């Protein structure tokens, strides 16, 4: 069907075209409109004993999560359903772990925990039984290392942030050495490592406020962002979601910064405070399969749970 369009019709069409152009131009920016919606907080175990300055939290599947209750020297395993914490919290306490600060869980449910005092990674069964310290096998010289942090990818490979010899060590699920990625020549101090869904390894430099990345099979890190000091004060933890977005916990700035896959700034969420939804010294974060974001709100002695609303 053909229609004759008169002068004013043309103008309307042109305006509509312009509007579409403007809207489509703004589409990538619309991610900036994302917002945290507070769901709930976790304060205690089943017996009513309060968390004490927890620094770690790891997610499993859609409902389970494990908290590194650092100040109490224990792990706690929780289940969340419909925004409510279910009864039946399991306390995991092992002698080899006096001050847990970061925890990760692999696809088989095995729990890996970094102890700050021991500066080593402890392996626990899904039920929380001690299975030994992670001792990398076949490390090339120099074989010594100091674990600042670690991450586990979707294939259960383990990434150790070694601040002693300035590298990330990559181990297979059995702990055998696979590869290492050297730190860049110039950096401030790396405090956390994460692996995104594509296998890219990410580092956060809290001193310079920069994120560095190394693609799969890369031998060296390069800057993903320039300094983010405009948005952050002292970011020390990072994680990614299944769309590759990067979440930074700004410890001193008491907020969560969200970056795009390419490192572009998208949003800054939450802020300093004691009320629910606020943060004070956030540390490890994790994101479960439902997209719920768990944050170890260290100085508020609780875990906060949010969802991302776009």
């Amino acid at each position, binding site marked *: 069907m053909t229609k004759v369009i008169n002068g004013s019709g043309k103008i309307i069409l042109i305006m509509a075209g312009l509007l579409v152009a403007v809207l489509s131009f703004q589409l990538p920016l619309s991610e900036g409109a994302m917002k945290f919606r507070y769901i709930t907080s976790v304060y205690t175990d089943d017996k009513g004993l309060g*968390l004490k300055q927890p620094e770690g939290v790891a997610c499993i599947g859609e409902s389970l999560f494990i908290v590194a209750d650092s100040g109490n020297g224990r792990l706690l395993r929780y289940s969340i359903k419909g925004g409510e914490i279910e009864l039946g919290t399991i306390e995991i306490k092992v002698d080899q772990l006096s001050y847990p600060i970061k925890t990760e869980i692999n696809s088989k449910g095995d729990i890996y925990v970094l102890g700050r005092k021991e500066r080593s990674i402890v392996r626990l069964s899904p039920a929380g039984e001690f299975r030994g310290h992670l001792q990398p096998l076949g490390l090339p010289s120099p074989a010594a290392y100091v674990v600042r942090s670690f991450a586990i990818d979707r294939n259960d490979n383990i990434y150790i942030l070694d601040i002693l010899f*300035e590298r990330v060590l990559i181990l297979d699920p059995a702990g055998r050495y696979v590869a290492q990625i050297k730190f860049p020549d110039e950096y401030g*101090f790396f405090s956390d490592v994460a692996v995104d869904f594509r296998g890219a390894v990410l580092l956060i430099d809290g001193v310079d406020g920069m994120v560095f990345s190394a693609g799969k099979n890369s031998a060296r890190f390069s800057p993903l962002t320039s300094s983010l*000091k405009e948005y952050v004060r002292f970011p020390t933890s990072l994680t990614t979601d299944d769309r590759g977005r990067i979440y930074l916990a700004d410890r001193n700035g008491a907020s969560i910064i969200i970056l795009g896959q390419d490192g572009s700034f998208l949003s800054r969420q939450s802020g300093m405070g004691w009320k629910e939804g606020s943060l004070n010294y956030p540390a490890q974060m994790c994101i479960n399969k439902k997209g719920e974001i768990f944050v170890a709100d260290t100085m508020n002695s609780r875990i906060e749970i949010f969802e991302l609303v776009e």
Partner: protein
Amino acid sequence: MKIKGINLGCVTLFSLCIMSFLIHAAPVHSANEFKLKLGAKGQTCLKCHETFNETLKSRFVHPLLKKGECIGCHLPHTSSHKGLLKTDKAKLCYNCHKEVLPENALSSHDVVVEGNCGACHDSHGSNNRSILLKSGSQLCFDCHKDVGETVSNVRFTHKSVVQDKGCLNCHNPHASAESNNLLQKKVPSLCKSCHKTDQIVFKRKHMDYPVTDSNCNSCHNPHGSNKRGMVFDVAHAAVVEGKCTECHQKPTSLETKKKTNQLCRDCHQDMVDQTFSKNRVHWPLVDKVGCVNCHAPHATKEQKLLKGSVVKVCGRCHADTVQLQEWSIKNPENERLCEPVKRGNCIVCHSPHGADNILLIREQSVTTDLCGRCHEWETHSTHPIGAKIIDNRNKNLTVECLTCHQACGTGNNPAMLTFSTTHELCIQCHVERIK
């Protein structure tokens, strides 16, 4: 409006830009700009400004004044700038003296960058070379008092500081394209201009170690010290005793015997063991650089061989926190600033090597054990605080000093309060007061 396709607005804007450029880029003065009578010039000014007759008798007089070209810098009738200056005082000198601040400068004198030339020079004339306000190093010491005190009080003085051109023997007064600290050349090239490193006496004094290309300032205070050889006043015992082999291999190289904190541990075993028994070791202590992240291995002017003042060393990584501290100090309303914060003495509250507590705080209870050392917290106010008082917002927290105050400073908030007003602070808990 358009004329033959040319936007008139653009033309106007362009014209304004050109005019503005011409006004600002014009020579300092044009020939007889003010239509002065023949021979008038400065003589006319001096009729009223008689004091400059004396200035003209100085050994060194600004060439414009000498020529009677007062209008080189001043407008005779009106000006928007003090002293009837032609432009802003901070920019005026640069109209002619652009070269004092080269674009590629590695370091530049703050007063030069600020355009505060009058801090060192008398703009009209003086009896000192380069129309300086004072002669020799004394001019520098007026601001750099610590260096002045060092030079006049130390047992062993660096001859270069007191001879000939004084400070200018090593430093450029305005900027340096070669080095930091306004040095004429990088160290050790600068030092080697006078000190011959190939002489036997030099090698013997350095225990035959190949230090020719090392940073001399890692041991020697270039301004002088009380220790022989101008070694910094605070020196590592092994350096003072000449026991280089305690840490280094034989004099064939400068390599250390061990790396990281392992090297220091050999002597400082107790301290390292004590630190490593804590829940939290300060991460830089266990990285590749280890102890020398913060400490100078040889000598320094700071206590405990720190690489700088405490706040400077901590601020290298924790710049965001130190910035808050700096703002807090500058805030005139912050009379009740905590003393350690005021002095930038972070280690009064934080244990720099390691601690059992979060934030490397020295004591488990902030209120009673840490703040309570200086503040009588039980008489602080009528507000109940302490380990038994539960925060009504979160039963895992107790009401402590840090519930209301931020211990490292809060920038512009008074009394280091977390919020800018007392009202805003109180309603965080006392919600009923809002109603």
